[in-house]
């Protein structure tokens, strides 16, 4: 099922989020997304089984370990682990999942993860860069948005 703008707006309307796959490297894209959401006022936690804390903030091994639980999850993992992550989201009762994909590559999206979400009642945004839908993103993200519109792949 194609992602709609309504799903995207619903996702950003939530306040407590998790980003799965946050790197310790502050220049990595996953770290930038995590920090971006914090700077924009979201109550957002990091999930990465290989880190106990990042930037001095607690980091959780799995989504179902986050307490209090989150409303939505941004998945920034390699596709090889995405299927497990969405199963964790279901176990944690998460109702909204965003499977990232930037310019080029598959991002975190897998057909199996999308199908799992759809069959388990999880509202899934599949295959979009979160920056494209945040207000006043840098111009290259705006360019990406325009390119999506021109190619007819922008959500409606």
């Amino acid at each position: 099922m194609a992602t709609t703008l309504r799903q995207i707006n619903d996702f950003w309307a939530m306040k407590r989020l998790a980003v799965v796959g946050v790197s310790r490297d502050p220049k990595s894209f996953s770290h930038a997304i995590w920090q971006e959401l914090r700077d924009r006022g979201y109550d957002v936690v990091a999930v990465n089984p290989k880190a106990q804390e990042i930037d001095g903030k607690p980091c959780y091994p799995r989504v179902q370990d986050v307490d209090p639980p989150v409303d939505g999850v941004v998945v920034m993992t390699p596709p090889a682990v995405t299927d497990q992550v969405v199963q964790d989201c279901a176990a944690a009762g998460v109702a909204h999942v965003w499977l990232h994909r930037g310019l080029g590559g598959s991002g975190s999206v897998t057909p199996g993860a999308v199908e799992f979400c759809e069959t388990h009642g999880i509202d899934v945004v599949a295959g979009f860069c979160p920056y494209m839908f945040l207000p006043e993103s840098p111009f290259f993200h705006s360019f990406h948005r325009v390119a999506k519109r021109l190619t007819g792949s922008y959500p409606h």
Partner: protein
Amino acid sequence: MRTAIVVYRSQTGTTRALAEAIGDHVRARGLAATVVSVGDCDPSTLEGADVVLLGCWTGGFMIVAQGPDQPWRMFVRRMPAIRHARVGLFTTYKLATGSMFPRMRRELGDKVEAIGLELKSRTDRLTPSHRLDLDRFLDAP
């Protein structure tokens, strides 16, 4: 001991690294410095500082419409008026800063009495010239 707060808004990590370099330099000058992003900073903590440095990456379209982005502006709107601290600004940029500093000053409005430093860098490092500017800012009467 004098205290300094370096508050930054970074998009790719470059402004954060510059903020940390500024924090290191300020510490080397004998101040107790905290470096924190806008999303992690309690604005009320600025009231007790002796030195406040506010930084943001230069937004805009290449060489036009430069300015601080929304999260930085939102932070400034939550910020209390700073009456007793020395205040400086810094930014990272690619081509030109253009209207960046004027727009940062406009956002700050009358929350600050004077801006004692405007430091801009194309990289995440401090040059000798930047260090000199910082020293003058910190040592100003």
